[in-house]
Protein backbone atom coordinates (compact mmCIF):
# COMPACT_ATOMS: atom_id res chain seq x y z
CA UNK A 1 0.00 0.00 0.00
CA UNK A 2 2.81 2.40 0.97
CA UNK A 3 4.66 1.62 -2.27
CA UNK A 4 1.57 2.39 -4.26
CA UNK A 5 1.23 5.86 -2.67
CA UNK A 6 4.90 6.68 -3.29
CA UNK A 7 4.57 5.69 -6.92
CA UNK A 8 1.62 8.04 -7.33
CA UNK A 9 3.54 10.98 -5.85
CA UNK A 10 6.45 10.32 -8.18
CA UNK A 11 4.12 10.27 -11.16
CA UNK A 12 2.29 13.42 -10.11
CA UNK A 13 5.61 15.32 -9.74
CA UNK A 14 6.74 14.16 -13.17
CA UNK A 15 3.44 15.28 -14.70
CA UNK A 16 3.65 18.70 -13.06
CA UNK A 17 7.20 19.25 -14.29
CA UNK A 18 6.19 18.10 -17.73
CA UNK A 19 3.21 20.43 -17.57
CA UNK A 20 5.37 23.42 -16.69
CA UNK A 21 7.76 22.62 -19.53
CA UNK A 22 4.86 22.38 -21.96
CA UNK A 23 3.41 25.66 -20.73
CA UNK A 24 6.81 27.37 -21.25
CA UNK A 25 6.91 26.10 -24.83
CA UNK A 26 3.44 27.47 -25.43
CA UNK A 27 4.58 30.96 -24.42
CA UNK A 28 7.36 30.99 -27.05
CA UNK A 29 6.24 33.01 -30.06
CA UNK A 30 5.06 30.65 -32.78
CA UNK A 31 7.51 32.15 -35.25
CA UNK A 32 10.51 30.89 -33.28
CA UNK A 33 9.46 27.25 -33.47
CA UNK A 34 11.16 26.73 -36.84
CA UNK A 35 13.58 23.88 -37.43
CA UNK A 36 17.09 24.74 -36.29
CA UNK A 37 19.48 26.43 -38.71
CA UNK A 38 21.36 23.58 -40.46
CA UNK A 39 24.88 24.42 -39.32
CA UNK A 40 26.66 21.36 -40.77
CA UNK A 41 25.08 21.86 -44.15
CA UNK A 42 26.33 25.42 -44.36
CA UNK A 43 29.81 24.48 -43.09
CA UNK A 44 30.30 21.75 -45.70
CA UNK A 45 33.10 22.49 -48.16
CA UNK A 46 31.95 20.34 -51.07
CA UNK A 47 28.58 20.14 -52.81
CA UNK A 48 28.43 16.42 -52.10
CA UNK A 49 28.98 16.89 -48.35
CA UNK A 50 26.47 19.74 -48.24
CA UNK A 51 23.80 17.67 -49.99
CA UNK A 52 24.40 14.66 -47.75
CA UNK A 53 24.13 16.87 -44.66
CA UNK A 54 21.01 18.63 -45.90
CA UNK A 55 19.10 15.83 -47.56
CA UNK A 56 20.75 12.61 -46.41
CA UNK A 57 21.95 11.82 -49.92
CA UNK A 58 24.03 13.16 -52.77
CA UNK A 59 22.29 10.88 -55.25
CA UNK A 60 20.08 13.22 -57.20
CA UNK A 61 17.92 12.74 -60.28
CA UNK A 62 18.24 15.39 -62.97
CA UNK A 63 14.84 16.87 -63.83
CA UNK A 64 13.60 19.04 -66.66
CA UNK A 65 10.63 20.10 -64.52
CA UNK A 66 12.75 22.60 -62.62
CA UNK A 67 12.98 26.14 -63.99
CA UNK A 68 16.23 27.73 -62.80
CA UNK A 69 16.85 31.33 -63.86
CA UNK A 70 20.35 32.72 -63.36
CA UNK A 71 22.32 35.13 -65.54
CA UNK A 72 24.80 33.58 -67.99
CA UNK A 73 27.33 36.21 -66.99
CA UNK A 74 27.39 37.95 -63.61
CA UNK A 75 29.39 41.18 -63.74
CA UNK A 76 29.25 41.43 -59.98
CA UNK A 77 29.67 38.13 -58.16
CA UNK A 78 28.38 39.72 -54.96
CA UNK A 79 24.83 39.99 -56.27
CA UNK A 80 23.73 37.15 -58.54
CA UNK A 81 19.94 36.85 -58.89
CA UNK A 82 18.57 33.30 -58.69
CA UNK A 83 14.99 32.25 -59.19
CA UNK A 84 13.71 28.71 -59.03
CA UNK A 85 10.30 27.22 -59.66
CA UNK A 86 9.16 23.71 -60.40
CA UNK A 87 6.17 21.72 -61.56
CA UNK A 88 7.25 18.77 -59.41
CA UNK A 89 4.64 17.83 -56.82
CA UNK A 90 4.82 17.59 -53.02
CA UNK A 91 7.89 19.78 -52.77
CA UNK A 92 9.34 19.91 -49.26
CA UNK A 93 12.44 22.03 -49.81
CA UNK A 94 14.41 23.99 -52.37
CA UNK A 95 18.19 24.47 -52.06
CA UNK A 96 20.70 26.60 -53.96
CA UNK A 97 24.14 24.98 -54.31
CA UNK A 98 27.09 26.82 -55.85
CA UNK A 99 29.61 24.12 -56.66
CA UNK A 100 32.75 26.27 -56.67
CA UNK A 101 31.93 28.42 -53.64
CA UNK A 102 34.09 27.72 -50.56
CA UNK A 103 30.88 26.59 -48.87
CA UNK A 104 28.60 25.38 -51.65
CA UNK A 105 25.23 25.44 -49.86
CA UNK A 106 24.12 29.03 -50.32
CA UNK A 107 20.56 28.86 -49.01
CA UNK A 108 17.73 26.42 -48.43
CA UNK A 109 14.02 27.00 -48.18
CA UNK A 110 11.39 24.93 -46.38
CA UNK A 111 8.16 24.75 -48.37
CA UNK A 112 5.16 23.88 -46.20
CA UNK A 113 1.91 22.61 -47.79
CA UNK A 114 0.07 25.56 -49.34
CA UNK A 115 3.24 27.42 -50.26
CA UNK A 116 4.19 27.46 -53.95
CA UNK A 117 7.45 25.72 -54.90
CA UNK A 118 9.17 28.83 -56.10
CA UNK A 119 11.68 31.26 -54.68
CA UNK A 120 13.73 34.25 -55.77
CA UNK A 121 16.89 35.41 -54.02
CA UNK A 122 20.33 36.94 -54.66
CA UNK A 123 23.57 35.17 -53.84
CA UNK A 124 27.32 35.69 -53.79
CA UNK A 125 29.58 33.68 -56.04
CA UNK A 126 33.35 33.57 -55.65
CA UNK A 127 34.10 32.52 -59.23
CA UNK A 128 32.53 31.02 -62.34
CA UNK A 129 30.55 27.98 -61.26
CA UNK A 130 27.58 25.73 -61.86
CA UNK A 131 24.63 26.79 -59.76
CA UNK A 132 22.34 23.89 -58.84
CA UNK A 133 18.68 24.08 -57.89
CA UNK A 134 17.97 21.04 -55.72
CA UNK A 135 14.36 20.13 -55.01
CA UNK A 136 13.36 17.62 -52.35
CA UNK A 137 9.91 16.13 -52.78
CA UNK A 138 8.13 13.32 -51.02
CA UNK A 139 9.26 11.14 -53.97
CA UNK A 140 12.95 11.94 -53.97
CA UNK A 141 15.56 14.56 -54.75
CA UNK A 142 15.82 16.28 -58.14
CA UNK A 143 18.00 18.97 -59.59
CA UNK A 144 19.03 21.06 -62.52
CA UNK A 145 22.08 23.28 -62.95
CA UNK A 146 23.28 26.24 -65.00
CA UNK A 147 26.71 27.73 -65.30
CA UNK A 148 27.16 31.35 -64.27
CA UNK A 149 30.33 33.08 -65.47
CA UNK A 150 31.62 35.48 -62.86
CA UNK A 151 33.95 38.31 -63.85
CA UNK A 152 34.50 39.82 -60.38
CA UNK A 153 34.18 37.38 -57.49
CA UNK A 154 31.78 38.30 -54.70
CA UNK A 155 32.99 36.57 -51.57
CA UNK A 156 35.31 39.43 -50.62
CA UNK A 157 38.01 37.21 -49.17
Amino acid sequence: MVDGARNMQFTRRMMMQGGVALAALAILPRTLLAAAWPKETFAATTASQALKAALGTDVITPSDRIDLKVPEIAENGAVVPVSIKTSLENVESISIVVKNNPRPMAASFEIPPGTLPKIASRIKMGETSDVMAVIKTSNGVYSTASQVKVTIGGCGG
Partner: protein
Amino acid sequence: MASTIKISAKLASDVADVKSLIKHPMETGSRIDPDTGNTIPSNHITQLIFTNNGKQVMVANFSTAVSRNPFFGFSFEGAKAGDTLRLTWVDNNGATDELETQLV
Protein backbone atom coordinates in the same frame (compact mmCIF):
# COMPACT_ATOMS: atom_id res chain seq x y z
CA MET B 1 14.38 52.24 -34.31
CA ALA B 2 13.42 52.17 -37.97
CA SER B 3 12.56 48.74 -39.31
CA THR B 4 15.15 46.90 -41.38
CA ILE B 5 12.37 45.23 -43.32
CA LYS B 6 10.29 46.20 -46.35
CA ILE B 7 7.56 43.83 -47.52
CA SER B 8 5.32 43.97 -50.54
CA ALA B 9 2.51 41.42 -50.58
CA LYS B 10 0.14 41.30 -53.56
CA LEU B 11 -3.02 39.19 -53.61
CA ALA B 12 -4.25 37.57 -56.81
CA SER B 13 -7.25 35.35 -56.09
CA ASP B 14 -6.07 33.35 -53.06
CA VAL B 15 -2.36 33.52 -53.88
CA ALA B 16 -0.17 36.03 -52.08
CA ASP B 17 2.96 37.09 -53.92
CA VAL B 18 5.47 38.27 -51.33
CA LYS B 19 8.66 40.26 -51.91
CA SER B 20 10.88 41.25 -49.01
CA LEU B 21 13.97 43.38 -48.71
CA ILE B 22 15.99 43.43 -45.51
CA LYS B 23 18.77 45.86 -44.65
CA HIS B 24 21.67 43.74 -43.37
CA PRO B 25 25.43 43.72 -44.12
CA MET B 26 25.61 39.92 -44.55
CA GLU B 27 29.34 39.90 -43.76
CA THR B 28 30.96 36.60 -44.72
CA GLY B 29 33.67 36.78 -42.11
CA SER B 30 36.45 36.71 -44.72
CA ARG B 31 36.35 40.33 -45.86
CA ILE B 32 39.28 42.54 -44.83
CA ASP B 33 38.61 46.09 -43.70
CA PRO B 34 40.59 48.27 -46.13
CA ASP B 35 41.33 50.87 -43.41
CA THR B 36 42.46 48.70 -40.52
CA GLY B 37 43.61 45.57 -42.33
CA ASN B 38 41.58 43.49 -39.89
CA THR B 39 39.16 40.77 -40.91
CA ILE B 40 35.55 41.86 -40.50
CA PRO B 41 33.77 39.25 -38.37
CA SER B 42 30.90 37.32 -39.90
CA ASN B 43 27.54 38.94 -39.34
CA HIS B 44 24.77 37.39 -41.36
CA ILE B 45 21.10 36.57 -41.22
CA THR B 46 20.64 32.85 -40.56
CA GLN B 47 16.87 32.50 -40.82
CA LEU B 48 13.79 34.24 -42.18
CA ILE B 49 10.45 33.00 -40.90
CA PHE B 50 7.21 34.05 -42.55
CA THR B 51 3.83 33.37 -40.97
CA ASN B 52 0.35 34.18 -42.23
CA ASN B 53 -2.19 34.51 -39.42
CA GLY B 54 0.30 32.66 -37.24
CA LYS B 55 0.76 29.71 -39.60
CA GLN B 56 4.29 29.24 -41.01
CA VAL B 57 4.32 29.73 -44.76
CA MET B 58 8.08 29.85 -45.40
CA VAL B 59 11.37 29.32 -43.62
CA ALA B 60 14.49 30.50 -45.43
CA ASN B 61 17.89 29.32 -44.16
CA PHE B 62 20.68 31.64 -45.28
CA SER B 63 24.45 31.12 -45.38
CA THR B 64 26.97 33.94 -45.70
CA ALA B 65 26.60 33.49 -49.47
CA VAL B 66 23.31 35.36 -49.58
CA SER B 67 23.89 38.88 -50.87
CA ARG B 68 24.04 41.96 -48.69
CA ASN B 69 20.62 43.54 -48.08
CA PRO B 70 18.89 40.28 -48.90
CA PHE B 71 16.02 40.25 -51.31
CA PHE B 72 13.68 37.29 -51.07
CA GLY B 73 10.46 36.48 -52.96
CA PHE B 74 7.97 33.63 -52.67
CA SER B 75 4.23 32.91 -52.96
CA PHE B 76 1.64 30.99 -50.98
CA GLU B 77 -2.00 29.92 -51.38
CA GLY B 78 -4.97 30.18 -49.10
CA ALA B 79 -4.42 33.90 -48.59
CA LYS B 80 -7.14 36.55 -48.27
CA ALA B 81 -7.45 40.26 -47.68
CA GLY B 82 -7.05 41.13 -44.02
CA ASP B 83 -4.62 38.29 -43.28
CA THR B 84 -1.66 39.24 -41.14
CA LEU B 85 1.67 38.38 -42.75
CA ARG B 86 4.68 38.52 -40.44
CA LEU B 87 8.38 38.29 -41.29
CA THR B 88 10.91 37.62 -38.54
CA TRP B 89 14.65 37.39 -39.16
CA VAL B 90 17.46 36.34 -36.85
CA ASP B 91 21.22 36.56 -37.43
CA ASN B 92 24.27 34.69 -36.13
CA ASN B 93 24.86 37.32 -33.44
CA GLY B 94 21.35 36.95 -32.04
CA ALA B 95 20.06 40.20 -33.54
CA THR B 96 16.50 40.03 -34.78
CA ASP B 97 13.76 42.16 -36.29
CA GLU B 98 10.24 41.57 -37.44
CA LEU B 99 7.52 43.30 -39.40
CA GLU B 100 3.81 42.63 -39.84
CA THR B 101 1.63 43.70 -42.70
CA GLN B 102 -2.01 43.11 -43.64
CA LEU B 103 -2.74 41.51 -47.00
CA VAL B 104 -4.89 43.72 -49.25
